[in-house]
């Protein structure tokens, strides 16, 4: 313990530095002077993440293949290895096909709504309490902050920051996300708020709808689309969000709240589209999936 004093000094300096960072960034809010550092982070780590997710994808496939076929492991070793290799090929083929299908659905939805989109892959996700992902398209592809992000199924979130080749998406499930929403076939409007990470919460859905009118008609199974923001930023109108799962009865409340089951599976995002140009006119309910068909709902 000879250099205890020096150690304490270093510890003190580091702690003060981090407290200073927190204070400056917290006080600054949206236009904090440290936002530039995030840009630096995106420039340095963005390409690394792209490479990492490219490397990791086949590894994940291998794990999936292993999990899918536990019986294979008991076979003779070389047969297993051969099997493994073939399975992996097959698996990556189906994954490619899967991604192609996702892209096709995305383009279909974009065509229905008249949105102009840039397709991108999710390459990384946030930790702690934030529900954010990074996509591999940035300002070079025309992606800018405050743009809507969707999949073929429905709303994903909005762009918060855009680096040259990557962009950060705030998911609609994030606890700080608020999206203007409208019930289908009606003029009832409200806001969709993210519920944050589910954790041990049982039976919870990641989204909650708050209708502005206390006596608005609301039924389980009703579908919800985005209302559209002023100037179509950050949210364009008509993007499907989800269906009403459960209605909460809070006597005396001025608003009606309901839990929403989203169309998008937020834990398995892969191919997403960034709406770079809003539709010419509000598509209203045109993008919603057909009612009777089993909805490809999430979670």
């Amino acid at each position: 313990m000879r250099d205890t004093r020096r150690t304490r000094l270093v510890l003190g300096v580091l702690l003060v530095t981090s407290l200073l960072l927190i204070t400056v960034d917290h006080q600054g809010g949206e236009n904090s002077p440290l936002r530039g550092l995030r840009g630096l982070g995106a420039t340095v780590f963005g390409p690394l993440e792209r490479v990492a997710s490219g490397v990791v994808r086949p590894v994940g496939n291998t794990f999936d293949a292993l999990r899918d076929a536990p019986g294979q492991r008991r076979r003779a070793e070389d047969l297993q290895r051969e099997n493994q290799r073939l399975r992996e090929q097959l698996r990556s083929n189906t994954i490619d096909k899967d991604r192609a299908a996702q892209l096709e659905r995305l383009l279909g939805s974009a065509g229905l709504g008249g949105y102009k989109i840039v397709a991108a892959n999710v390459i990384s996700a946030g930790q702690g309490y934030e529900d954010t992902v990074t996509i591999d398209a940035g300002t070079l592809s025309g992606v800018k902050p405050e743009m809507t992000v969707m999949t073929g199924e429905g709303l994903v979130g909005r762009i918060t920051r855009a680096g040259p080749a990557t962009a950060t998406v705030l998911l609609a499930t994030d606890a700080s996300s608020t999206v203007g929403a409208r019930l289908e076939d009606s003029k009832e409007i409200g806001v969709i708020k993210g519920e944050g990470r589910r954790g041990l919460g049982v039976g919870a859905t990641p989204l909650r709808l708050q209708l502005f009118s206390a006596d608005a008609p609301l039924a389980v199974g009703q579908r919800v689309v985005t209302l559209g923001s002023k100037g179509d930023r950050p949210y364009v109108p008509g993007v499907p969000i989800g269906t009403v799962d459960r209605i909460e009865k809070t006597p005396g409340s001025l608003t009606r709240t309901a839990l929403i089951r989203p169309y998008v599976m937020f834990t398995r995002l892969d191919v997403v589209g960034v709406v770079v140009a809003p539709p010419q006119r509000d598509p209203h309910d045109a993008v919603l999936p057909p009612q009777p068909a089993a909805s490809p709902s999430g979670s």
Partner: protein
Amino acid sequence: MLNSVEEVRSGPFRSVLIIVVAILLQVAVANRLPLPGSVTPDLVMLTVVALALFKGETVGMVAGFFAGLATDLVPPADHTIGMYALVYCVVGYLSGLVSPEMDRSQSLPFVAVAIGALVGNLAYALVGVMLGDPRADWSIVSRTVPLAVLYNVLASPFVVWAVLRLSQRNERLEPRGGLSVPGFSARLGRQQR
């Protein structure tokens, strides 16, 4: 402890490499795992704790600070900059304090990593609550922290093992695989001398 200063000079590059790899694995793999409850293990924090346990509090807090700062900046981070820097720095320092005790028992490092993970999760939640972050609302914290600690404890043996393997590849006493506790205690025995 005398040795840890030497360690700072001899192997910062390896530690930097380990942390960069941990951060990339965290954002590109761990955070995308569809685990129940949509909570994920914090590999970076486990790495910092493991490094601190093997190399002492100086390495622990410096590595923690910079790993945290990088975690604050790496996309898609969206919280107040400095939160992880503060938390990982404290956790690294505290874990480093118990590093001389590490050769008492072979299972001690695993217990220590689990405790470090618990402290780190609670500290991060506390900082979030103090800042009034809407995401670190008490209802969200109370239902995610137990699960996060559980995942961290489950992931910790693998991280300890990997950090041990990577941080001393040039040592003659290579761990022989498994959870490599033999190599670990031999190494700490040397450090104690």
